[in-house]
């Protein structure tokens, strides 16, 4: 992967559209979105369901490609990349946290965290070292060998975050990271994400529909009907 050229935005959408289906059943998930996210930002994406926020996440995460327009990641047009190249991009630069945690069943915490490193081809010893470090970073240093069913929801989400950051990604993509958690645990998880953004300089892009969760972000983008409705800076956020 090439070095990032200074001044090139980390994430740049140029009139991105995304349509599903054909004919009368056509759905315009994204109807021309221009967006720039710089390194180190903490962005919350909000909006009602069907507004295009999830599609935006999928495009940023290289899980999906625009129908028209361009998505540039560090200046590279991802539309020109093959499926495998996009996978490699995810592998090296992106970390995912899902609403449903999505840990592998009957697999210990440390094995879950090691997973992305396996695909990167790291040696077992080094892998385990990095995985334990990531688990310590999210405050689960004492539970590395617990199976995911033995962990609480908050702990599972911490494992998922550890799995996302173990590869030292540029961007952490969080899709409703607190959607399945109670208020107290949600706060703990958000504090963790904020500290990752502040202390480690990981760019965070988070989808949420809860205003109090979005309040942790310094920038809030609202989607309505596949378009950006508002893009505001939240000065109160840490």
């Amino acid at each position, binding site marked *: 992967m090439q070095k990032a050229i200074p001044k090139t935005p980390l994430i740049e959408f140029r009139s991105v559209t995304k349509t599903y289906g054909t004919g009368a059943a056509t759905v315009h998930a994204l109807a021309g979105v221009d967006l720039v996210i710089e390194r180190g930002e903490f962005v919350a994406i909000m909006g009602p369901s069907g507004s295009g926020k999830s599609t935006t996440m999928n495009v940023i995460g290289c*899980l999906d490609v625009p129908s028209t327009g361009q998505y540039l990641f560090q200046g590279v047009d991802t539309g020109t990349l093959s499926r495998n190249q996009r*996978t*490699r991009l*995810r592998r*090296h630069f992106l970390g995912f946290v899902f609403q449903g945690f*999505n840990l592998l069943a009957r697999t210990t915490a440390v094995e879950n965290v090691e*997973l992305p490193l*396996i*695909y990167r081809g790291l040696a077992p010893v080094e892998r385990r070292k990095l995985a334990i470090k990531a688990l310590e970073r999210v405050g689960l240093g004492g539970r590395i060998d617990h199976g995911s069913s033995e962990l609480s929801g908050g702990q599972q989400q911490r494992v998922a975050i550890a799995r996302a950051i173990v590869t030292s990604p540029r961007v952490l993509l969080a899709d409703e990271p607190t959607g399945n958690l109670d208020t107290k645990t949600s706060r703990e998880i958000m504090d963790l994400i904020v500290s990752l953004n502040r202390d480690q300089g990981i760019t965070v892009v988070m989808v949420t529909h809860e205003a109090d969760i979005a309040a942790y972000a310094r920038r809030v983008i609202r989607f309505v009907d596949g378009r950006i409705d508002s893009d505001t800076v939240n000065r109160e956020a840490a």
Partner: protein
Amino acid sequence: MFFETLKLAVQAIRRNALRSVLTVLGIVIGVGAVIAMVTIGNGTTAKVTADLAKLGTNLLSVNPGQFGPGRASSEAKPFNYRDVEAMKQQLLGARAVAPLAQKTATVIYGTENRSTTVIGTSNDYFLTQDWDLSAGRTFLDGEMRGGRAVCIIGETVRSKLFGREAPVGRSLRVGSVACEVIGVLQAKGQSSFGSDQDDVVIMPIRTLHRRLAGNTNISRIFVSAKNGGETAKVQRDIEWLLRERRKIAPGKEDDFSVHDMKQILQATAGTTAMLTGLLGAVAAVSLLVGGIGIMNIMLVSVTERTREIGIRLAIGALESQVLMQFLIEAVALSVFGGILGVILGLSLALLATMALGVPFIVSTGIVLVAFAFAALVGVVFGYFPARRAARLDPIEALRHE
């Protein structure tokens, strides 16, 4: 990377231990059947071949009548003593000429009795069959000429009737005749055709004729050619001699037949080998069925683990890595089944060969072939489900409940 994938596959198999075992059952049975069939077949062929080697004395079997479709051998007249004498004197290439008359009779010793084959013949019989005694002696000339009530018994008769007792010198009742046992034959085991050759009582031919049969018919003559002698020449001489003795006009067909025992056994060996191949092929079909079982379960597995596949793809697994994971899982399953199948097949073959009394010969070749075929079945039938897993859309897969 390969070992990681293998580890993942083994994990996945162990998570569903029962299902995995049931899945590979088809492969186990397939591989087991192929190996058992071929091993048993090879043992039988080896036994026939060994019998063939034992017939080193170029044995010819002379029978009255012609065998074959539309020909009744019973119509032809049997041989007589003079035929045998003439053959002994005139066949220069012959080493031994043994007349044969057979009858089934009940033999009784003490409280034990058994129905067995009684053969009337001469000492030449032991030469033609390459059969030695384990105890006692063969017939004396006087016993042969006088038709004395003496007999030599086979190993099966000895063990069933005499048990631990020494039989030589004892009196054995054969049918209605009280017979002195003068010798015991060495154990020979089953014939190539599956009968117990040791279940026999042998007595001088005149004894059998006079006391048991009530006629002087000779139903068969064994002739063994001299070592290095030409069997074909001896065969022609026998034919010429018998045509003359039986007064067959030129141009008319023989009313007797001369067979080279070696040819008969060779034909048997050929048939056995062909049957082995055929049974092996039938067994191989069950391997194929086992492969379909694996494909079925792998497809179920892919559907079940759609979400897991989505996670893997999202966090950086390449299509090829997911493909490999599922392919290796299928191959690991089938190889596991193959190992169980080899164990099962060899155990079955061991039991069967012991029961049939044929040697247990493990052919490394067929074990390897069956095993490799099982692995190949895994690759072929695992590929389709694995490709399906690899091509999943991660977004869809993650949304899958």
